[in-house]
């Protein structure tokens, strides 16, 4: 049994780990020319070119490209901004739209052949996105209600016995100012990281089994098959995470705009 399990090349299987995400720089010797950075710039170019082309020749009877662009825009505008924020939603549509398309394209890079690296599995990118959401919704809340009233509303909810504030107020502050933006970033990061790791396990595992004895070679197609099924599953997760990130950003903005929670 041990002989069967050992692979033909002699080397043991190295399970994929977090070091698989630390890619070397493509050229030069600095930390700024790695693959994720190029993917971010590429995604910006891709999104810009697509939507400029889609909206350039706007017609009443839309072309296919225009229809595709408009349905994405309409989805963000109606499903996310209008439903959640309510009236006065229009000035947040550009921000939410940028957020959604940026995260979506960068996530889907994880399963596009040749690129195959979800940019958001590097923690810094979700952190920055969550930071922008954080700044936007606090700024909007302070602007709308005044700083004092806004913070008072967060810290002291009405209709609670005075003694309970000792227990509750720290939790409200911590939730609003630390946990919310942190979980916003970490949810996106963890989903992309774990998804990419999962794909690596099955694809690299299948490839490793292929180098084993004949019995293991027969198992290897199953590993690849599971890897392909998981790729489609991963696509679903990537779209869903882009949606959830934008949805929660819109909900936080709506919460900051509303007079009472």
């Amino acid at each position, binding site marked *: 049994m041990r002989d069967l399990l050992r692979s033909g090349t002699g080397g043991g299987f190295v399970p994929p780990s977090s070091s698989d995400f630390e890619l070397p720089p493509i050229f030069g010797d600095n930390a700024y020319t790695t693959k994720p950075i190029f993917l971010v710039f590429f995604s910006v170019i891709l999104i810009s070119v697509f939507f400029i082309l889609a909206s350039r020749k706007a017609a009443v009877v839309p072309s296919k490209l225009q229809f595709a662009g408009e349905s994405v825009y309409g989805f963000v505008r109606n499903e996310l901004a209008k*439903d959640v924020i309510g009236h006065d939603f229009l000035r947040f549509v550009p921000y939410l739209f940028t957020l959604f398309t940026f995260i979506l394209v960068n996530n889907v890079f994880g399963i596009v052949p040749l690129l195959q690296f979800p940019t958001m599995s590097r923690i810094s990118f979700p952190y920055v996105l969550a930071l922008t959401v954080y700044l936007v919704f606090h700024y909007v809340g302070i602007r709308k209600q005044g700083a004092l009233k806004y913070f008072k509303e967060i810290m002291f*909810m009405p209709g609670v016995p005075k003694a309970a504030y000792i227990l*509750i107020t720290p939790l409200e502050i*911590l939730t609003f100012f630390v946990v919310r933006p942190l979980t916003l970033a970490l949810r996106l990061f963890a989903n992309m990281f774990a998804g990419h790791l999962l794909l690596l396990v099955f694809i690299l595992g299948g490839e490793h089994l292929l180098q084993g004895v004949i019995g293991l070679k027969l198992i290897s197609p199953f590993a690849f098959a599971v890897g392909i099924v998981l790729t489609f599953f991963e696509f679903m997760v990537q779209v869903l995470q882009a949606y*959830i990130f934008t949805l929660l950003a819109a909900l936080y903005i709506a*919460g900051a705009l509303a007079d009472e929670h």
Partner: protein
Amino acid sequence: MAKREENAMWSIFGYLLSGLLFWGGIGYGLDQWLNQGYFTLLGLLVGISGAIYLVWLRFGRE
């Protein structure tokens, strides 16, 4: 209108997490300071009950 539920679920998650972190952290600090062993557990219990109380206030009342 499933969006309200989505918001509520992540809010509940955030409240519970921050309750555990805050009061559990205080308990842990007391443990380190006084060389005891039970303040962490006490803090975690206080934090979780405070957070559930807060969830009840926010979402459980009619």
